[in-house]
């Protein structure tokens, strides 16, 4: 049992890291914000955490606070100018943010070490730490989802006109979504820096952006299980398909396409919807049986 965990520890850590990134993407998509900023917020978190420890000699816990703080501030700052944008324009503006952060990490060599990245970061976070972080974020997301904020997010996503006619402030909720997305991605980046010994700018580029988006689309954007399912599947899939070698990405792409065609609401949301419908039909047939 122990040896199983030992040999799969890096993979499990990666899955948990991906789950955090997926939550960061999930929270904006749920609120109807088409933000691609997760990779940028994660990069800020990772660099903040790495610089705090390697250059400033601070303890890791302070580094994590800096990572979350920087992600939060970045999310809040981005939300202000983006409040007027919608849909594809939000996507483009946040894509630009990813490019800006990428070029800062590449070119501000004095602080970020440029393309080589920051190396020999002490590993202070293990599997347990990652697991705790994911557990806390999952709890927060499910608490948020079942109260006023999650409900407002759902209404804004489905129909903004209805939302405003009910008195829901769209800028306020978009701001909340951006702040949460920034904070969660900042945390993810910080934890990644402390588990993976080194960070490089290109980890937080276009590949991450696409992968994170794919995880939420595959998993689902309403239930909190969506990002978790998506992260686990897309972390495990490359490993399971290892035998296919160079055909791996082709098969992975094809599987993703099939799942989007046949499960457009995502694996978790479709499954939950089906179960709910079945329970309702079961309950109503039972009620009919009683009246007869």
């Amino acid at each position, binding site marked *: 049992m122990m040896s199983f965990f030992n040999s799969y520890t890096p993979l499990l850590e990666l899955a948990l890291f991906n789950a955090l990134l997926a939550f960061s993407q999930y929270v904006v998509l749920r609120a109807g914000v088409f933000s691609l900023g997760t990779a940028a917020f994660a990069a800020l978190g990772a660099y903040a955490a790495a610089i705090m420890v390697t250059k400033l000699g601070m303890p890791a816990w302070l580094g994590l606070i800096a990572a979350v703080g920087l992600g939060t501030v970045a999310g809040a700052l981005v939300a202000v100018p983006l409040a007027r944008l919608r849909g594809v324009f939000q996507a483009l503006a946040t894509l630009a943010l990813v490019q800006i952060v990428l070029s800062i990490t590449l070119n501000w060599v004095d602080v970020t070490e440029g393309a080589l990245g920051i190396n020999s970061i002490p590993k202070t976070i293990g599997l347990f730490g990652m697991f705790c972080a994911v557990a806390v974020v999952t709890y927060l997301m499910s608490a948020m989802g079942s*109260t006023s904020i999650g409900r407002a997010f759902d209404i804004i996503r489905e*129909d903004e006109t209805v939302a405003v006619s*009910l*008195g829901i402030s769209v800028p306020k909720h978009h701001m909340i979504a951006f702040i949460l997305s920034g904070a969660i991605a900042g945390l993810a980046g910080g934890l990644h820096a402390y588990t993976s010994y080194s960070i490089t700018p290109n980890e937080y580029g276009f590949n991450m952006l696409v992968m994170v988006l794919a995880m939420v689309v595959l998993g689902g954007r309403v239930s909190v299980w969506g990002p978790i399912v998506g992260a686990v599947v897309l972390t495990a899939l490359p490993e399971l398909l290892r035998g296919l070698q160079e055909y791996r990405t082709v098969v992975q792409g094809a599987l993703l396409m099939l799942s989007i065609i046949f499960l457009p609401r995502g694996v978790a949301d479709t499954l939950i919807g089906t179960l709910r419908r079945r329970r309702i039909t079961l309950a109503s047939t039972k009620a009919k049986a009683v009246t007869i």
Partner: protein
Amino acid sequence: MKALVLDDIARSFGGLPAVDGVSLTAPAGRITGLIGPNGAGKTTVVNMITGLLKVTRGRILVGDEDVTEADAPMLARAGVARTFQNIRLIGDASVLDNVVAGFHRHEKVGTLANLLGLPSAVRERRELENKASALLERFGMTGLAKHPAGSLSYGHQRRIEMMRALAMDPAVLLLDEPVAGMNDTEAHSLADIFRSVAQQGVAILLIEHNMRFVMSLCQHIYVLASGQLIAEGDPDAVGQNPKVIEAYLGA
């Protein structure tokens, strides 16, 4: 008890007036009708009252409060609720959740408490669900509480929209063609509900195309044609007004 007052409001699109100088009063506790043929500007009036469109001229008052410049969320908070001409519900969400959404303006628990899922937030959610259940009972839909709203019949969906609007506990209620596409039995049962809501002191403005339905329900009716009021009065007076007959028959 607040009345809705429109004072000479106007709106033009690219220089063409869609609504040109409409003044009306919808007093509290009454159902006031606003009728007119297709393209008369009824929906433009609704969108101006609810803040989705800005007026180019005139004032809108809810009670003593001037809400001319207010945006849609501010108006909702001032107590203006509406239903939509084409039903707009969250189809995947349950009937109960759709109705709970209407209580948004009464929620008191702060953002942080909601994010952290503190007991106060959980308690508030339960209270709102109880209130929503009471509304469902009043509308005879208790058994459907958990069904996805989108899976229900047209008549049921109209009722859910109505419940969501009532959950806002409005001072002013705008009904934008609430019985469009309904049969007479369904329309009559909704009419009873409208009457009981008005009796509680809500100012109802009923915007309808269906003249017969408005005549049976409203004490006072305004008639809109080509963006202007062409007649007002009690149902009999309006029904016999030659201008109204002309506008409707398109002579």
